[in-house]
């Protein structure tokens, strides 16, 4: 829990990882390029005082994770969202077994989400069933730009994606987290397009689709889809640290999200270990939309509380002390939330 100015915030970090990107686990050059890309994100968007050495960044281990999140980081509960990346890392990028073990040992603090690849076909479905029986997860993380044999990406609208969603439905896996990377096939079109989320969300209205990094770099496409689909949510991975380097950009991201999808469908995450939660939470609680951006209403404390934890807690049935709970906003389920604020009329 984080407390400031007499307000208490229940914190759910909805997207964390336990990875191993050390050279001995890298399968090939893309394995090194992948973690180097993450490290540049980390260096570029972190305050100086929060920057890690490259060595630290390659691997953290469970002990450090627990400290960074729960001792230093104010986090009440965190959710693993593993990216397997077997084409890049010998034992996978996300350390699935270790993360599951850590969550099993700390069920009040950690939720383990699993991952699968629909291109594994029938054999993958069997494995998903077996994994679910063993681990009992409520959510999965899908990285659509994962390399798989000759294929370097898939769409959520592919027939096999649908077969897996049907299986998720049967197993009670309700929360589908989507990480859109540059999906390569076919190369003809925009690799970051989130239109396939629209198809899947329309056809599986009983599943929640959480689009990580709120569709960035296609915020506009994400907002347009999410405003029409009440089961599409936005995860703030990668977006949060812009508070530090580009606060006006962050203000616009959060302002657009509140406008298009409302305060009940946005989830905080640090994207640990790319960033650590402590400074992000402190700054978000202090954050406000700049006064000259009159197209957005100021962020309220209630909105911050929902984003920082209550929204994800609700999705995952994580118990929240009664005094920290808040009711849903009395808002439309689809379409813009503050249509009266769409204009700049009266700014002067």
């Amino acid at each position: 829990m984080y407390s400031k100015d007499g307000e208490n915030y229940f914190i759910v970090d909805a997207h964390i990882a336990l990875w191993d990107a050390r050279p001995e686990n890298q399968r090939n050059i893309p394995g090194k390029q992948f973690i180097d890309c993450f490290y540049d994100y980390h260096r570029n968007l972190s305050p100086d005082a929060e920057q890690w050495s490259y060595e630290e960044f390659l691997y953290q281990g469970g002990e450090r994770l627990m400290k960074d999140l729960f001792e230093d980081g104010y986090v009440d509960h965190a959710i693993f969202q593993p990216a397997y990346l077997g084409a890049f890392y010998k034992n996978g990028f996300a350390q699935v077994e270790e993360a599951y073990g850590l969550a099993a040992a700390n069920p009040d603090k950690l939720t383990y989400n699993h991952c699968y690849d629909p291109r594994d076909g029938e054999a993958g479905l069997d494995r998903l069933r077996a994994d679910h029986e063993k681990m009992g997860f409520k959510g999965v993380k899908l990285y659509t730009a994962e390399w798989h044999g000759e294929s370097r990406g898939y769409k959520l609208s592919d027939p096999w994606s649908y077969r897996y969603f049907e299986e998720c439905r049967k197993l009670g896996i309700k929360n589908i987290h989507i990480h859109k990377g540059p999906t390569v096939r076919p190369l003809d079109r925009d690799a970051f397009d989130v239109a396939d989320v629209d198809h899947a969300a329309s056809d599986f209205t009983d599943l929640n689709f959480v689009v990580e990094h709120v569709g960035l770099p296609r915020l506009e496409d994400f907002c347009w889809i999410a405003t029409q689909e009440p089961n599409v949510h936005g995860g703030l991975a990668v977006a949060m640290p812009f508070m530090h380097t580009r606060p006006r950009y962050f203000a616009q991201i959060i302002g657009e999200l509140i406008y298009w999808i409302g305060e009940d469908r946005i989830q905080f995450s640090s994207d640990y270990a790319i960033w650590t939660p402590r400074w992000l939470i402190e700054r978000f609680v202090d954050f406000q939309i700049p006064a000259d951006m009159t197209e957005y209403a100021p962020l309220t404390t209630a909105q911050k509380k929902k984003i920082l934890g209550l929204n994800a807690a609700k999705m995952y049935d994580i118990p929240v002390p009664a005094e920290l709970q808040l009711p849903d906003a009395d808002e439309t389920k689809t379409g813009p939330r503050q249509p009266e604020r769409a204009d700049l009329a009266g700014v002067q």
Partner: protein
Amino acid sequence: MTALHLDPAAETRWDVTEEDIRSALDSVFDPELDEPITDLGFVRSLEVQAGVGGARVEVHLRLPTSFCSPNFAYLMASDSKDVISALPAVAQVVVELDDHHDSDVINAGLAADAGYRGTFLHEAEDSLDELRWTFRRKAHTAAMERCLTDLLRANASLVETEVGTIRLWNLPAGRNKEALLRRRAALGLPEAADATVLVNHEGHPYPPDAVPLALRRARSTRISIDGNAHFCRGLLRTRYEGSGTDQSPRPDGAEAADHHELLPLIVKEIHP
């Protein structure tokens, strides 16, 4: 007899300079960010050597991450090769993309002039034309929103539903209007002074009740492009030390913390 024939190498040797190459590359755009690769700092090195029959030019490109989308990477690299090859004094062009996960594939394709489908084989279906159009439309949408938002901020009496009736002649002259006209031309939209500003990519205006949503949607597009452009610039500076000196300032979406600080932000500010 031979005196009548000039040696082709001697004739063209000094006709192309690094500046010529650079200014040719000014016309190569990152389609996603809607900016020349020369402004973004994507040109890593540029070498011109005299050669038989004309100059030999070698250009190396670099991108903000190894995992930048390969279709955009290929477009910029192949466009670079095309514009340099089109210079009359150039006999041989080598364009290479450095440090990308698809460098080998793309560089081999460029060296062999294999084209898009020849380069990417089974991963390519038809062409990258539709991709280019998608981002030309987005660039137009963003340019349109910048102009209309400026106008709204400058005119307190302007009612929002009336934004749909604004014509090009209502826009003050300046950088944003010029940019909008360029984007309109790229889409084949009318540039006449009485043309409506707020239109979809086919040139159709919006009925008054649809104007606020159209404007707001355009705004999210503008925010996205500006945000991506600055993030990509920042990542390039992080990845390649010193590359910031090769970047030109981008006024759209600039913030105090950018390393280019002295930018005209006035248009976005309000002075009550």
